[in-house]
């Protein structure tokens, strides 16, 4: 009941004209970011963090979550019409979405995308409202040992699942964790790896690094290839069909649950939510042969899964300060910039804020429904704007975005260096998401390891013998061992 009262107060606070304007405007911008291949939800949130830094926390987070939800939703447009997913989260929906477009049912595919996205987000919002307080309460029992493994597990899982090569993903995660060690250490305020350079004393700021990794690197990747002309197919009616919802209600519920669970896993993200939901839908479907050839059920599962993963990824960010995905990591960093401290104590110190986030996610969901119904066709003109026009303008925004938070030229240098390094690493198959998770979680991993060792006087046993720490350690070790060919061969022989 107390939770409902908080939620009611949060919703009432979002009904003002400015709040509605912010929600609709930010969702629209998010959809455009999602539609444009090369611009990701993570970059959108990072750029808007710099723009909203002087706003009150609730309004700033309202804008950021609306950009987040809008971008993940908007990316399917490009996938359906051009067979190029607008964001990584839309790759699974692209398979059947584009197949439907080739059959002259692009509008229907977009209607399914809207239905799946809205229902997935609503399912996720319900889980966000109920699971966040429960998880935060459970996490009150966590000590440094548990937080160390939880944060390390986030980086390892992100490394395993966000690229094609876990070994490269883990290396990028370690690089991110190392990047977070630069500057004053969190316990004794001792300078590490600053080489006497004053600008490095404050460390590598997250937003410039993010803008470099997801913005500048992506701009270089897009500009490296010649532009392909967008050939947009004719679009039939985009109105969602009730019949699709009724026919596939089991798939929707299953995909929502899978999306939320995958979202909660530290560092995994919306793309895995979509793929896991798609795979499960195919496994249980009576129309399995249609998957990959324009399956309504497959499209519905993928879109429900990736949008349900958004609130799922926010749950551990709020309750444990361990984000479930790269965009959620930026969102968490934005909360910290605005004076909110995510983690188990959030429900004790600022319970209203947790319910503000629930209400905001609900508003963002309703906003994508509005745009899904009335703005699909007008928004498609964005696809006709050449990338050679968009990318230079985006680079100016990236440069100013990196600079804006602290007004330091040094942050522009950070953006450039991180962008160039990530560009070359990405070209060799090193994924960027674990690097970002590493930067966000580096402080927790460092402080938790040292605090744990101080508490145990150098004894490693509590890192493995405490029940939750032991379970997290086992999962972390299995995550790595499962990728070792010799171990896999051994398991294959035994089974």
């Amino acid at each position, binding site marked *: 009941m107390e939770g409902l009262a908080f939620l009611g107060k949060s919703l009432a606070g979002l009904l003002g004209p400015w709040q509605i304007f912010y929600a609709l405007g930010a969702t629209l911008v998010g959809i455009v970011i999602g539609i444009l291949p090369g611009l990701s939800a993570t970059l959108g949130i990072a750029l808007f963090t710099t723009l909203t830094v002087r706003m009150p926390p609730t309004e700033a987070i309202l804008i950021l979550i609306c950009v987040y939800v809008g971008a993940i939703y908007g990316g399917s447009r490009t996938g359906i019409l051009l067979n190029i997913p607008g964001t990584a989260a839309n790759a699974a929906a692209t398979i059947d979405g584009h197949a439907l477009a080739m059959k002259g049912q692009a509008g229907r595919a977009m209607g399914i995308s809207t239905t799946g996205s809205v229902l997935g987000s609503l399912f996720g919002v319900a889980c966000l409202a109920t699971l966040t307080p429960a998880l935060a309460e459970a996490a009150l029992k966590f000590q440094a040992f548990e937080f160390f493994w939880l944060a390390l597990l986030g980086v390892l899982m992100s490394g395993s699942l966000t690229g094609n090569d876990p070994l490269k993903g883990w290396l990028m995660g370690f690089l991110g964790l190392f990047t977070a060690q630069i500057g004053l250490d969190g316990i004794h305020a001792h300078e590490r790896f600053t080489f006497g350079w004053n600008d490095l004393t404050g460390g590598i700021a997250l937003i410039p690094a993010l803008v470099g990794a997801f913005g500048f690197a992506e701009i270089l990747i897009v500009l490296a290839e010649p532009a392909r002309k967008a050939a947009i197919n004719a679009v039939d009616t985009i109105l969602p069909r009730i019949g699709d919802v009724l026919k596939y209600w089991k798939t929707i519920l299953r995909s929502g649950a899978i999306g939320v669970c995958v979202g909660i896993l530290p560092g995994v993200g919306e793309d895995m939510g979509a793929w896991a939901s798609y795979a499960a839908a195919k496994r249980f479907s009576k129309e399995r042969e249609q998957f990959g050839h324009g399956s309504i059920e497959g499209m519905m599962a993928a879109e429900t899964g990736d949008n349900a993963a958004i609130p799922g990824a926010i749950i551990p960010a709020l309750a444990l300060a361990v984000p479930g995905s790269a965009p959620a990591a930026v969102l968490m960093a934005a909360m910290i910039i605005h004076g909110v401290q995510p983690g188990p104590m959030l429900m004790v110190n600022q319970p209203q804020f947790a319910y503000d986030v629930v209400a905001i996610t609900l508003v963002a969901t309703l906003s994508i429904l509005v745009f899904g119904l009335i703005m699909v066709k007008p928004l498609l003109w964005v696809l006709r704007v050449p990338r050679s026009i968009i990318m230079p303008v985006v680079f100016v925004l990236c440069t100013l975005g990196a600079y804006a938070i602290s007004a330091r030229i040094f942050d522009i240098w950070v953006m450039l260096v991180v962008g160039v390094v990530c560009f070359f690493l990405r070209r060799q198959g*090193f994924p960027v998401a674990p690097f970002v998770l590493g930067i966000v979680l580096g402080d927790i991993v460092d402080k938790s390891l040292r605090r744990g*060792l101080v508490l145990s006087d150098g004894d490693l046993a509590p890192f493995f013998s405490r029940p939750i720490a032991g379970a997290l350690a086992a999962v972390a070790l299995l995550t790595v061992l499962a990728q070792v060919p010799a171990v896999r061969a051994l398991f294959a022989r035994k089974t």
Partner: protein
Amino acid sequence: MRRGADRYFAVGWIVFGAAVLAASWRMDRLENLHINPWSAPGLMPGVLGALMIVFGAALGLRALRQPIAPSETNAASAARVTLALVLCVGYAAGLLGHGLPFWLTSAAFIFLAILAFRWLDRDAETPGLARLAASSAAIALGAALAIGLLFERVFLVRLP
């Protein structure tokens, strides 16, 4: 191409990890402050350096076991990347923050970048160079002024 490059990247990771490990080992352990030795600032970076060495070695060993695929060098792509790097780094590191007005440097960068890449991507429908330059200049000036005003007047950011 990747497997061949992995050998060099593995060496890079091992060298970088070793450098981090060495720097962490040599880092002040603050013994003069009588801190708990398990809270020494170099502990975590040292662990990360060691992990980079181990995983970098695993990457190298895996790359050695696999045949090197023929290199797929794409000269056109490399030229485009070089052009993008020169324009972007020249603008962000060379022009911004050196006293020139933001709108002017940004308009110049956007104009050059749009013109160069639209010209590289030109097809039968692309207008002639003069019209392309005029439209690129209009977009560049409009975008630079709009971004500058947005950040300076709405978001109260002091422009570089």
